[in-house]
């Protein structure tokens, strides 16, 4: 609870901070609002005066004077409303854009461990719906300031005209504010429930469409229809509850001001009869009542909205206040130039969750230019070893050294540029093939891109694509096969000519019949680089000069693939387990084989 309150307060501070760069516009908006308010108040006064001093005594020159005044002040009012609205919306959109940019930039910098725990959907919600919630309050702020001015000015003018009539006329008006606030508060949870019920309903639709084969196969159409009917009834039920709340509130928006008008007519009428007021004053009072309706309704909305917005801003703040755990060193050391890329893990301990070390007392030296495969059962920490090198995570104890320099002493950009990684899931961006390959260095000339592609055995298939290197791939573009994606990813990894190459399970998602193509590509790119291979396919492991078997967070055996096969029972076990899983996959290849045979 306290945390919630704290976050809401932080949310308000965050909103204030997004408004700070907009100061100029805020001030302009408020001033424009003040001018607009003044004009809006004066016009009914002029109209009233025209009736009392012009029409009633029959002085046409006075009428003309006031008509001209009304038309002139009207121009001020119209300009005021234009500027006031422009400022309000501009401020809110600018704040929204700025906040989203800050959030994105921060998320891009946050360390891996943060992203491991965060769900993409949740982060998307922060950047999308939460920011919109925040925006709803920001947009109301300048309007609210204008509205408060309207409120004060009208009340003051009414009091100046006639204290008693002002009290009689305004008697019912505060209730409008009260009911508006109450309505906004009450409708919010019902609207939310309605949204949830609608979500459940579309859930039934979605799964019926996705699982249509099951539905049809078992003749479960009726069952699904019944489920939908139940959901549709819940929706109906909530929608009617919301309608009831609206029915209780909306007519009041007409009724309460009407009460004020009745009061003005009756009590004010008697004041006129007693000679204390004039008919034009009554008209003026009437106009002011109409002016108060919207400020009060919006006020109600603001009160109800602000709590939700502050909570949303608090959630955004929570992300922004998270510091990235992996930062550049205060006094960075350069990596020695032209060094071979020697890697050293020195008594390394690392844990994802406190108290459950994945690596403990891990020692390993990889000579420059050497290729080492790391093999181990699932959860043994073999991928972790690879992730400590580019500082995706920092060690808890010990050191990781590249060419004798602790990775924590190197600037992140330099460190990561000197290490090329091919990930297990080859994430490619929705962009051209060339842009994807040149990801590490967008300035790279086309020759470099092609060279990297050739090295990765990708050039041949890329030039066959519809637009060659300019073919857009990814979600909305051309879809590549697993092997092709993998080769593009390899080209991407070697473009910047890194001294160290990490193949993180790089062949596991590739069709085994196509594996030899990748293997050839890998052999080429590994030449002259220190390579760390995380693998469980024997064929991929065979690319390495040396194999280390890790289990329980430390090395239990080391040697060549052959040697380990001969000497280590555990190694054979681990490989056999991996093979088991793969044989199951391999058997499915019969389909591919059969296809190949037919096409020949």
């Amino acid at each position, binding site marked *: 609870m306290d945390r919630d309150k704290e976050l809401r307060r932080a949310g308000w501070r965050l909103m204030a901070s997004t408004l700070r760069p907009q100061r100029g516009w805020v001030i302009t908006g408020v001033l424009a609002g003040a001018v607009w308010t003044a004009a809006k108040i004066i016009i009914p006064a002029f109209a009233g005066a025209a009736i009392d001093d012009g029409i009633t005594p029959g002085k046409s020159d006075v009428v003309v004077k006031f008509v001209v005044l009304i*038309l002139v002040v009207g121009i001020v009012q119209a300009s005021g409303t234009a500027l006031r609205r422009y400022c309000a919306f501009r401020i809110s959109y600018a704040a929204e854009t700025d906040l989203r940019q800050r959030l*994105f930039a921060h998320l891009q910098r946050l360390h891996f461990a943060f992203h491991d725990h965060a769900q993409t959907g949740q982060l998307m919600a922060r950047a999308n719906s939460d920011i919109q919630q925040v925006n709803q309050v920001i*947009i109301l702020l300048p309007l609210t300031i204008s509205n408060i001015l309207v409120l004060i000015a009208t009340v003051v003018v009414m009091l100046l005209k006639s204290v008693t009539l002002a009290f009689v006329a305004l008697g019912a008006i505060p209730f409008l504010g009260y009911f508006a606030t109450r309505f906004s508060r009450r409708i919010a949870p019902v609207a939310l429930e309605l949204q949830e019920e609608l979500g459940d309903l579309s859930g039934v639709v979605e799964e019926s469409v996705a699982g249509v*084969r099951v539905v049809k196969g078992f003749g479960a*159409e009726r069952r699904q229809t019944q489920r939908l009917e139940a959901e549709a009834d819940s929706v*109906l039920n909530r929608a009617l509850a919301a309608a009831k709340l609206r029915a209780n509130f909306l*007519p009041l928006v007409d009724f309460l001001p009407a009460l004020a008008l009745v009061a003005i007519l009756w009590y004010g009428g008697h004041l006129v009869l007693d000679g204390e007021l004039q008919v034009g004053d009554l008209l003026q009072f009437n106009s002011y009542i109409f002016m108060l309706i919207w400020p009060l309704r919006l006020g109600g909305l603001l009160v109800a909205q602000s709590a939700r917005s502050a909570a949303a801003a608090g959630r955004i703040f929570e992300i922004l206040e998270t510091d990235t755990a992996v930062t550049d060193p205060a006094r960075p050391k350069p990596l020695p130039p032209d060094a071979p890329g020697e890697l050293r893990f020195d008594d390394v301990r690392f844990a994802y969750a406190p108290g459950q070390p994945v690596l403990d007392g891990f020692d390993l030296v990889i000579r420059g230019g050497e290729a080492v495969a790391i093999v181990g059962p699932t959860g043994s920490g073999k991928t972790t070893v690879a992730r400590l090198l580019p500082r995706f995570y920092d060690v808890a104890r010990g050191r990781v050294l590249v060419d004798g320099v602790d990775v924590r002493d190197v600037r992140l950009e330099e460190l990561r540029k000197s290490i090329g990684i091919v990930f297990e899931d080859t994430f490619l961006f929705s962009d051209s093939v060339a842009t994807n390959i040149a990801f590490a260095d967008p300035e790279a000339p086309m020759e470099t891109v092609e060279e990297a592609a050739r090295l990765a055995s990708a050039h041949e298939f890329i030039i066959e694509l519809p637009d060659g290197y300019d073919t857009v791939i990814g979600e909305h573009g051309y879809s590549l096969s697993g092997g092709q994606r993998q080769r593009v990813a390899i080209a991407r990894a070697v473009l910047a000519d890194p001294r160290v190459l990490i193949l993180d399970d790089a062949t596991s998602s590739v069709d085994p019949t196509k594996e030899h193509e990748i293997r050839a590509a890998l052999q080429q790119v590994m030449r002259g680089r220190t390579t760390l291979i995380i693998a469980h396919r024997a064929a991929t492991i065979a690319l390495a000069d040396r194999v280390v078997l890790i289990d329980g967070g430390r090395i239990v055996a080391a040697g060549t693939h052959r040697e380990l096969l001969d000497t280590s029972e555990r190694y054979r076990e681990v490989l056999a387990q991996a093979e088991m899983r793969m044989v199951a996959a391999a058997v499915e290849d019969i389909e591919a084989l059969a296809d190949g045979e037919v096409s020949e």
Partner: protein
Amino acid sequence: MKRGGGGGPWGQTVVDEPLTRGEAERVMRRLWRMLRPWRRRIFGATLLIVGQTVCLLAGPALVKHGIDAGIDKGDAGELNLSAGLYLVVAFVALLFGRWAIRVVAGIGESFLRELRVRVFHHLVSLGLDFFEREKAGRLVARMTSDVDAMQELVQTGLTMFVQNILVFIGALAAIFIISWQLALFTFLVVPPVFFISRWFRRESNRAYLEVRERIGTNLATLQEGLAGVRVVQAFGRERAFTRRFRETNDALYDANLETVRIATRYFPVVEYSGVLGTAIIVGVGAWFVDDDVITIGTVVSFMLYLQNLFEPVQQLSQLYNVLQSAAAALHKLFGLLDTRATINERPGAVDLPVTGALEVDDVSFGYGEAPDVLHSVLLTVAPGERVALVGPTGAGKSTLAKLIARFYDPRNGEVRYGGVSLRGATMRSLRERIVVVPQEGYLFSGTIRDNVRVARADASDADIDAALDALGVRDRFLLLPEGLDTEVRERGSRLSAGERQLVSLARAALADPAVLILDEATSNLDPGTENAVERALEALTAERTVIVVAHRLSTAARADRIAVIDHGNLAELGTHDELLAGEGRYASLWASWNAAQSTRAS
């Protein structure tokens, strides 16, 4: 001032493509027919709204009376009477208003409920061909966003629409009755407001379509930046990617600002028109008062009615979008309702016999307008026999399986069970006798028990236990924290692919069919459940007629007979040994598979 401005970021209805006049008329006529059960209530609601409007509009007239007959003449009695009547009509308007909102919501919401159920019922009754043709996302959108598009109309739009029209007409009538001379001049300000409102609606609709598109682009960049954050960091590209996001983010800002600019042009004109109206009433009114054409009270009442002329024009212009998008949504929904189901139960359909042979008699089939993918296939499966369908992807083996389950009807020939054509069978008996176990074990939200019960809605818990026991998998599920009551879609209790497959098999066991069509899984199963699935399959297929769409030759080899399908023809048919001896397609497939196996083992 209007609800924070039509230029605001919320509550804006965007219309993609408005219907043509003819389409809109057809939609409206059909809607009116559909509304038949509600017509009396609609009539009642209209009366309520008319009553409310009359009461609202009576106010300014009573003010006029109070001023002219009471204040001007110094008659306190008339003044009290006017104020008293005003109080009464205001109160009556309140009561009518409450009542009208409830009645309209009752009509609208129950209509939407009916529409949802009807569209869904129709949707699930459509054939598999429809689902294979249409994108799932679009079908879901029909049921969600299209129906929701009408929700806004029903919630506030409809009442406001009717009420605004009535207020406008009523106010116009009122001012003309009070003084047609002054009314003529006052009316001058209405056409400009009308035209600029129309301009504003069109322009802001265009601008908001652009905003919507840029929101989409921006979200896509955002999504990619988050999904690919590890790659971005691995290559040290954080700053470049942040710049890339800035481009789409700023583009969205520009589009938003464009909507602000449009609104900035609109609202001053509308406000100034109001001022102009006031000036006309004062100026022209003074002149008429001087000539004794009208009274002071008339001038005051006109000022009060001015509001009632302006607001409706602005609001109707906004509501027009809501109305248009609702009509467009209805149009799409009607299109769906008009799609005819291809697989229907014929009148006079008979139940399939309890047992019998399955005959595929000279069957040809093609999808939609496309050429045949199966050519004169002839195959008879004896009761209790196990036949494997083998062949390359796209050869037609899955299509044949679908015809046997009557997901489609053949173009030529017939599929019979126990001598009865599937076309002439009742759907209930068909689904009871012949059951398809799909490749992926699809799970619905709900518990494991609920998911098994999909196969037979009236099954008792004991029936479900029995089905699970028959496959020897009940104990496995009982090990889960909540046992059979485990919610399958809930976080943390995700079932593995193998376990999902087991649930799928349990469904088939509960249905207890005579014929089982298995589409073999191609995806990986974890070694732990692989064996359980194998055992369950053995138990399930025992003593049933089985057609298996085989992706693994090892599965095919275990069948009684193997049917090799190639290019839509039944190329070979016989036992494993017969086909190997025949040295045909199957024999060569078997040889290359064996070769592949041995290279991989090394």
